[in-house]
């Protein structure tokens, strides 16, 4: 059990939440899928200001590691890493799709024990996805496949072996990152791994050796 936990997720909008002993004290969520660098500082400052607490109270910083579009994702992780340094808190990472799964299972009683496929937009005609099979005894969603990236129809076809599942989508929020992180801490299943889940290599092409420039005009 932690005193205070600060959670950050920038996989969709910019979202920050402050949690204490299982309840979310304050949260700020900007749904703007861009401007993460602009919004992150105010968002963090506001969750403390709202409840008149100083950042030093924080014992644990939890960040959503994605998968998500890279640029925004990095802003949240960078902020989480540095906030933990600033206040001397422990740092932990969660898969953002796991947080979305927890939110779904908590809010959609009709899906209680069913399988769900959590899907978010990966651009370029692809999706980031992860498949879950209910919640375990610790209250943690059971991920059975993913997270991964691929074409929607191909992903769906490839997952047919898992039988029926309901597809859900949405934007992860720090609120559910915090709840998931809390459950993981209680169960002793937390991880201090906060590397970004890019799932794609950078777009870059290695040039041929001795490459010439432009068209040849001579010869």
């Amino acid at each position, binding site marked *: 059990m932690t005193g205070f936990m600060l959670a950050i997720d920038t996989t969709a909008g910019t979202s920050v939440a402050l949690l204490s002993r299982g309840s979310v004290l304050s949260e700020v969520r900007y749904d703007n899928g861009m401007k*993460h660098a602009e919004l*992150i500082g105010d968002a963090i400052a506001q969750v403390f200001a709202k409840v008149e607490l100083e950042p030093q109270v924080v014992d644990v910083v939890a960040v959503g590691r994605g998968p998500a579009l*890279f640029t925004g994702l990095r802003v949240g992780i960078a902020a989480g890493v540095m*906030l933990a*340094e600033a206040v001397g808190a422990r740092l932990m990472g969660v898969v953002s799709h796991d947080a979305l799964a927890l939110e779904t299972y908590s809010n959609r009683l009709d899906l209680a024990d069913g399988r769900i496929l959590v899907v978010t937009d990966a651009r370029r005609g692809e999706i980031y996805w992860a498949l879950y099979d209910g919640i375990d005894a610790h209250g943690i969603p059971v991920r059975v496949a993913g997270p991964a990236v691929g074409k929607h129809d191909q992903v769906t076809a490839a997952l047919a072996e898992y039988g029926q599942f309901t597809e859900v989508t949405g934007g992860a929020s720090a609120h559910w990152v915090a709840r998931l992180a809390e459950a993981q801490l209680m169960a002793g299943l937390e991880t201090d791994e906060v590397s970004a889940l890019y799932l794609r290599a950078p777009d870059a092409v290695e040039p041929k050796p001795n*490459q*010439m420039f432009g068209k040849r005009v*001579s010869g």
Partner: protein
Amino acid sequence: MTLEQITIRGARIEDLGPIMRLEQNNFGTDSWSEATMRDELVANHTHYLVAAIVDQVTGTESVVGFGGLSKHGSHDQSDIQTVAVAEDMRGKGIGRRLMNQLVGIARDLDARMVFLEVRADNTPAQNLYDSMGFKVIDTRHNYYQPDGVDARIMCLELPANIKHEPIVLGIESSCDETGIGIVRGGTLLANVISSSMELHARFGGVVPEVAARAHLEALQPTLHKALAEAKISLQEVDAIAVANGPGLAGALMVGVGAAKALAVGLGKPIYAVNHLVGHVGADVLERGEVEVPTIALLVSGGHTSLLLVRDLLDDVVLLGETIDDAAGEAFDKVARLLGLPYPGGPEIDRVAANGDPKAIRFPRGLTLPKDMEKHRYDFSFSGLKTAVARWVEVAQDKGEDFSIEDVAASFREAVVDVLVTKAVNACLDNNVPRLLLGGGVVANRRLREVAAAKCEANGIELRIPAFNLCTDNGAMIAALGAQLVMAGRAPSSLSFGADSTLPVTTVQTL
């Protein structure tokens, strides 16, 4: 290229005429009488400044703005009496410079509060005062007559004692170096640079996404090393500074996100500073100040820029920059063409040492008379790179043996020649007896040699900071941040973003 040389100086009684003309043009029915203005200018408790343009040919001055401050002896309060800028000169930052200097005077006179009144319908002025940290404390209804416009009373609280030598931590992430530096005032405490250069080698140039990923990974270890080197804890840091542009957007955002979280977590102010002006600010760490005016030539893999710096914090002008490739990029590309590894600069330098720089006359970009009219201080290296490629092609097609050493030396000579010639021209044209070099390409031996020789021949003082202060680094960002703190500047808000094309005129993003 003509540049408006705007200087700010103390007002004299001889300025009364031009001041009154500005007063009447600006304030019309609200104008003070000439007698009132004369009293203001000569009174013991007032401090008036004028902004003047100096004609570079005739040396004559014309007053384009003025402002005054009143501060009575032992009071800890002072008042901005008036600030005015000629209508056709607005939007150039003159009002801000006048205000910054007036507030500086108030601080030097130990004022704790600076008050001013502003017309409620004067939005640009209110925005300026807001950005300087002034807060509206009262409204006087129908204060301005006969228009019946309200006056907003604004107040700026000055910190009781700005720490003489604040500890500032600076973060740099504009390209492929993650830099975290720590300074105490103008003294360097730590300068740790983690470069992702090796990761880019196989691509022959910096890949933005690779650089951004590397920044995220490097943040924590680089911070730990910097704190260990400075022998301080984070809690001792007084302010955070971060480069928010120009540079690679995705890379900059990592630094911005990190810096904001540090500032909020520590409860310390944050200063968003210009990366290029940071290169100029690096000189503070070696000389205690940046002597101005100075021309700065900043040459790296991402930039090739000529700056005229009359004031490090308030008056930086871009004279020219590359219109295509940066000089460092040209080195990389030509190195690859010659079968040399990345990064190209050191490799070309090494090979060129045994070559004849006069063997091949490669073109000097933008130096023909017709180009010089429009691009006197601009650079172009794309044509040079192509010329080298063609030359090699032709030689190969003819089956001729050629000396890579000569090609490298001749290419390097062409780059260095243009860089130094244009920089020295900028010094001579602007009567600036100083040239400061910055950026990773400054490591180039030939550039240093030619710059030293040409500066000496022209009576120009050459400044080349140590290499780890020339290349992209966090210490220069911290140094510029510390200068802002010590000048009593308001911190940046928490809502600034990364700006890949941030102009050099924006030294601090508020």
